[in-house]
Each structure stands twice: as structure tokens, then as C-alpha cells.
């Protein structure tokens, strides 16, 4: 119940932000609500990071009061925001049976996302020790006390990655405020929002290409296996497939001699940070893309800043991915964000700079505080140097192999990566058109992120195969999965010729 209350508060907070910005760009209802939810979650991360850093641990009453204070205006702004959104489809072509089927499938997987997030306890190593433990500490002790700083002494308390950003633990803390006690399991259902909102954003981003590709894109995202499980029922792919379709117990009964069988479980709905990062990054990308286009408005700038700040507070990888998104959108030609002539390039760049400044300002206090926290990690910053990379060139073949296996792992990805690759090759037939294509920046971010992850795996002190056994690099690639879905469908489907006002 506390997670549901938190979801409602986040949604209203998002409407507060959107309403106060007085948007001039007409958003579809799906885009409006998906943006509101993500912006609300991002603002909760930003607000409580800054408040807890400033005044220390809050009482549940104060924490709840602050969240309510932000949500309250949303109650009054909600109706206006929805009225300003594009009306429900009245003039569009009627829904075909196939489209209705796609909608049913999306709804089914949406329900699975909610069920999967709400029905199991938090159990993964990262989910517990990188995030939930910190949430418990923030709830009771605040950020930066002995538990955070004693990890490098002769004797001290243990913390994995003390300088990881606190956004995800803080979401669990907010749920704790609402229920009066910390419990990571109570916050787990909140993660379904990070699966549902990008589905809405994908639908609205692809809607200009027709209802069918928009539905297909949303379905490809919400049905990604990596959302629901990473650990497969059996080590053998065929047997794992059997175990997934018929249940691992049926697999164990039918093939008892085929090694250990286990329940498929644990990845991003298990309250880790990859899913929030993916959602915030894609939401931020969409806002930025709109902000630099002619139709961009204040809400795009404000929401873009908040969502990118959310991405920076979700996971350390945000430190690389957020600048990458901003840089690519600043340099890429074309007019993302819909039709119409783009604004003066300087205006577009100015809006991007505003978003970057806003995101930076919102997380500045955390990054100052972070300087006082030990890293206690693999030290990738020091390893990712020209010399470090040169020393690791001998591992290129191994790392390439792990990426190839990840891209081809249909049990975790379905066919997303072949689809993305084929879309890129297809678009490369007409390079001049590709240069101005709306989806080019998204594709470049995916490629750039893949390059960064490749470099990280080159210099990692871990054994490559041991790391692969923990789900890397798929876990990393997941952070740009919504961008990959968007790029693939936008590159493959031409915009439809329906009248724009009929789209929603």
C-alpha cells in the first residue's frame, strides 16, 4: 500500500512540475502521464538527496509532509494538464483486431511487471547491498556518517560502493516514510513504474509512425525478459526455455538428470538501479530532443533537467551516459521531437545547455558530498586511461565474445539487438537521410554507451568469464534498451500519414 501511495504522490508531483511550467507543446495523454510519473520519481530522488544531505535523517512525518507538500498542487493542476493534452482519439482510424491484440499483450505484460515487482522479496546482491542497505542507513542515520566513511580504516563498517549515488535507496526511504518504518520489500512494487512509464513514452515517441509500430515498440520493451529474470531455470538454453514455458518444477520432473533446476528470477524489477537509470535516461532524452526542436517548451527543459538529474542519482553509469546524451543531441544534425522547422540552432543549443545546467545544479550538493566518501570499488576511473586501455588490448577478443553472446542471447533479450543492428544497416543505405533522421541521436547514444561498456570490460580487474556469469554486459546494455527500441522502430518505420491531431 505504501508503494501505491508513493506512486500516486510521484504522479501528482510530476503534474505539479508540468502544471507550473505552463507547457505550450501539446502532449498526448500517454506521454503526459508517463512523463508525470517519471518526473515525480526523479524529483523525489533529487529533493530527498538534497534535504537529507543538508539536515540528516528525517522523521517519517517530516518526509511524508515534504512529499505531500510537493504533490498537493498537482491535485489542482491535474485537470488543467489533462485538458491541455491532445484529446482522445476521435478522428483516427478505428483500432484493428491486430492492434487490439497488441494492446492486450502490452496490458498483460504491464500486469506481469506489477505482479513480478510486488510478489517477491528483494533478493539480489546488488539490490540488497548496493541499495537497500543504504536505504536503511539513510532512513535511520542519514548520509555520510560512520557507516559510509569508516570502510577504509583498520576496523570499520562494511559498505559496498559508498560513493554510489543515493537516488535508488532514497526511493525506498520515501516508501519507508509513508509507512513509518523502512522495508525494502515494501518499496519493490514501485519498480513497475520504471517499466510502465518507458512503455508509454515509447508509444508516444513512435505514434507519429502509426499506431501499430507504436504498440509494437511498447510491447518489445515491456516484454523484455531481462526485466523479469536474469537467472535462468537451467544452464542449457533449450532446457531453460522448457523451464520458462512449462515451469522449472516441470523441467526438473521431466529432465531430472539435466543438472540443477531453479526458479527463474532476479533482475531489474528486483529493485536494482539499472531499470530506473534506463527509464530516467530515456525520459530525459525525449525531453531534450523536444527541447531542441521548434515545438520545445519550458516543461521540456524542466522535465529534461529533472530526469537527467534522476539518472545521475540512480547509478554511477549515469555519469557517463547523461553527458553522452547531451553531447550527442548537441552535435547531431536533424530535428528530433517531431515535424516542423527546427528553431534557430543557437536557441536549441541554449535549451540543451539550460537542461544540462539544471541537472548539474540539482545534483551538485551530492557531488560535493561524494568527494568526502571513499570509493571502495574496482577503481574504473583510474583504469580507464589510454595506458590502462592499451594494457588491456589483449582481452579484446574475450570481451568481444561476451558482447556477441549477450547480443545474441534471445532468452534475455528476445531479438532486440538483431533488430537494432538491422535497423542501423538498413538506414545506412541512405546516409544523407540518416544524418537528418530523428532516431540518429538515440542510435548514437546506444552505440556510444556500448563503446563505454566495452572499454570498462576491457580494463575490469574481474575475470571476464566470471563477470559474464553475473549477467554483464547484458545488465549494462539494459540501461540503454529503451533508446535501442526507439531507434530501431523509428529507423525502420516511416512516419504515417494520419493527421497529427488524431494521434494519442
Amino acid at each position: 500500500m505504501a508503494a501505491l501511495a508513493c506512486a500516486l504522490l510521484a504522479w501528482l508531483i510530476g503534474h505539479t512540475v508540468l502544471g507550473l511550467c505552463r507547457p505550450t507543446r501539446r502532449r498526448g495523454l500517454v506521454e503526459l502521464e508517463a512523463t508525470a510519473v517519471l518526473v515525480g520519481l526523479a524529483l523525489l530522488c533529487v529533493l530527498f538527496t538534497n534535504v537529507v544531505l543538508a539536515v540528516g535523517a528525517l522523521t517519517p512525518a517530516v518526509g511524508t509532509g515534504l512529499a505531500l507538500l510537493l504533490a498537493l498542487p498537482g491535485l489542482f493542476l491535474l485537470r488543467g494538464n489533462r485538458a491541455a493534452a491532445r484529446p482522445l482519439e476521435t478522428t483516427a482510424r478505428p483500432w484493428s483486431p491486430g492492434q487490439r491484440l497488441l494492446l492486450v499483450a502490452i496490458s498483460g505484460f504491464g500486469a506481469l511487471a506489477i505482479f513480478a515487482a510486488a510478489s517477491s522479496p528483494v533478493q539480489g546482491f546488488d539490490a540488497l547491498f548496493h541499495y537497500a542497505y543504504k536505504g536503511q542507513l539513510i532512513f535511520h542515520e542519514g548520509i555520510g556518517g560512520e557507516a559510509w566513511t569508516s570502510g577504509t580504516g583498520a576496523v570499520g563498517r562494511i559498505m559496498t560502493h559508498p560513493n554510489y549515488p543515493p537516488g535508488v535507496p532514497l526511493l525506498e526511504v520515501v516508501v519507508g516514510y509513508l509507512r513509518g518504518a523502512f522495508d525494502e520489500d515494501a518499496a519493490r512494487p514501485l519498480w513497475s513504474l520504471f517499466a510502465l512509464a518507458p512503455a508509454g513514452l515509447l508509444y508516444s515517441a513512435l505514434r507519429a509512425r502509426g499506431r501499430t509500430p507504436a504498440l509494437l515498440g511498447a510491447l518489445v520493451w515491456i516484454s523484455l525478459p531481462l526485466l523479469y529474470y536474469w537467472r535462468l531455470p537451467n544452464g542449457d538454453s533449450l532446457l531453460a526455455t522448457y523451464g520458462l514455458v512449462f515451469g522449472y518444477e516441470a523441467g526438473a520432473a521431466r529432465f531430472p538428470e539435466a543438472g540443477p533446476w531453479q526458479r527463474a528470477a532476479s533482475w531489474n524489477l528486483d529493485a536494482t538501479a539499472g531499470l530506473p537509470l534506463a527509464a530516467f535516461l530515456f525520459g530525459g532524452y525525449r525531453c531534450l530532443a523536444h527541447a531542441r526542436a521548434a515545438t520545445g517548451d519550458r516543461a521540456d527543459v524542466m522535465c529534461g533537467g529533472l530526469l537527467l538529474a534522476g539518472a545521475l542519482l540512480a547509478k554511477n553509469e549515469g555519469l557517463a551516459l547523461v553527458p553522452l546524451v547531451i553531447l550527442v543531441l548537441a552535435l547531431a544534425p536533424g530535428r528530433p521531437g517531431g515535424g516542423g522547422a527546427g528553431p534557430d540552432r543557437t536557441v536549441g543549443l541554449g535549451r540543451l545547455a539550460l537542461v544540462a545546467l539544471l541537472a548539474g545544479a540539482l545534483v551538485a550538493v551530492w557531488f560535493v558530498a561524494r568527494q568526502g566518501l571513499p570509493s571502495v570499488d574496482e577503481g574504473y576511473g583510474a583504469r580507464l586511461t589510454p595506458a590502462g586501455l592499451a594494457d588491456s588490448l589483449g582481452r579484446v577478443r574475450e570481451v568481444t565474445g561476451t558482447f556477441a553472446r549477450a547480443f545474441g542471447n534471445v532468452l534475455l533479450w528476445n531479438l532486440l539487438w538483431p533488430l537494432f543492428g538491422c535497423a542501423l544497416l538498413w538506414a545506412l543505405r541512405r546516409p544523407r537521410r540518416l544524418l537528418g533522421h530523428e532516431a540518429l541521436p538515440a542510435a548514437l547514444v546506444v552505440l556510444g554507451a556500448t563503446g563505454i561498456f566495452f572499454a570498462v570490460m576491457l580494463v575490469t580487474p574481474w575475470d571476464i568469464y566470471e563477470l559474464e556469469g553475473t549477467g554483464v554486459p547484458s545488465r549494462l546494455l539494459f540501461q540503454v534498451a529503451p533508446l535501442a527500441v526507439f531507434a530501431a522502430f523509428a529507423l525502420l518505420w516511416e512516419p504515417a500519414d494520419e493527421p497529427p491531431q488524431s494521434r494519442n
Partner: protein
Amino acid sequence: MDVPRAPLFARLLVGASLALTVITAGFGVHSVADWRANMQGRSVREQRASVSGVAWFRTEFTGLLDRLEEVLPPGARLLVEPAAGPALAASGERLGSPPRWFLPLTHYAWPVRVYVRRPEQAVIFFTYESWLDHHFEVLDIDGGGPATPEAVRLAAEDERAIDEHGIEWRLRIPTWPFSMGGLRLDRRVDGAWVEQADFPRPEWGA
């Protein structure tokens, strides 16, 4: 449907990808059945116990938590150290194995504050053997104590830190071979560690 505007190969690829969602949908159906059979209406503890493959949901670990809750006062400061030989590599034990239970303890035993020596080495798996070396080779905790002047200095440094943190309790967890009966809880009295004789449950075995 809208007039398809994607190339045929793309539509085929998307179709094949969607066909694969049957696998995920199958997982969803079995998850619901599994939940109804094993988790619906159960306590969080029972739900956790029904999850396989998670070391910190095992009954040995939750039993240890219960026992610590009985014995330690709220907010107690507890030093966790390894006992018995550093045979980690040979044991094949991994992240969540009993020797590294200090990690889940630090979360699940809260408000008990869990401390270790050299936490930086303890927390990262690939420096964990160095952490064991510090205990068994430098400090020689299961032998005659530190032998070299440098080891004596390091041991004194550790003792000072233990005092500074106000640590009053110590839990020794056997590395390999592990047994629940090998767990030992000590209390610091006048600077010396005194074993709490009644700590291991009788059913844990000696």
C-alpha cells in the same frame, strides 16, 4: 492495421521477436502459480525461505539472525571475524557463503552495527583472500598471534580502532569447513574477549 511502412525483413524480425515473448509469458503464468503455491498468505520470512539459491534467505542464516537478536542489545557493535583456515579458494564458496555472512549481517542484523577489520578488503570479492590473509597470516588469530614487529604494530592498530568504535561483541564465523556449531560469540570485558558459552544453539551441533 496501419499500412505497413517497414521493410519485410523488419516485420519478420519483429514478428519473430514477439513470438519469443511466449517464453516470457509462460514464465509469467508459472510465476503466478508459483506465488500462489509458495508465497500467498505467508509471512515475509516464509516467502524468503521459499526463494531458492539466495544464501541470506537460508534457514541457517535467519536462525543466526534470531539468535543474535536474542543475545545482543539493540545498537550493539559487533566485530565479525573469520575462524579456521583460509581455504576459500579450495572451498569454491562465493559471495553469499557463510564465510562472507558479514555482508548480509550488516543489513539484516540492523540496528546491530557490524564491523570488520580491513573492511575495504572484505567487501570486494577479489580482495577477500587478502582479508583472510590479514587475519590468518598477519594477525595469526587462530595461532599464536602476531609474530613480526610489523604484525604486532598492525594488531595494535586494530585493537585501538576496536576501542575507538566502542565494539563490545565479536562473532567468529568459520571459513572452511563451515558448521553452525563453529560459530562463536565473545563479549569484550576489561579489554579481553570472553566467550558467551551459551551462544550456539544446541541443535546447531558442535
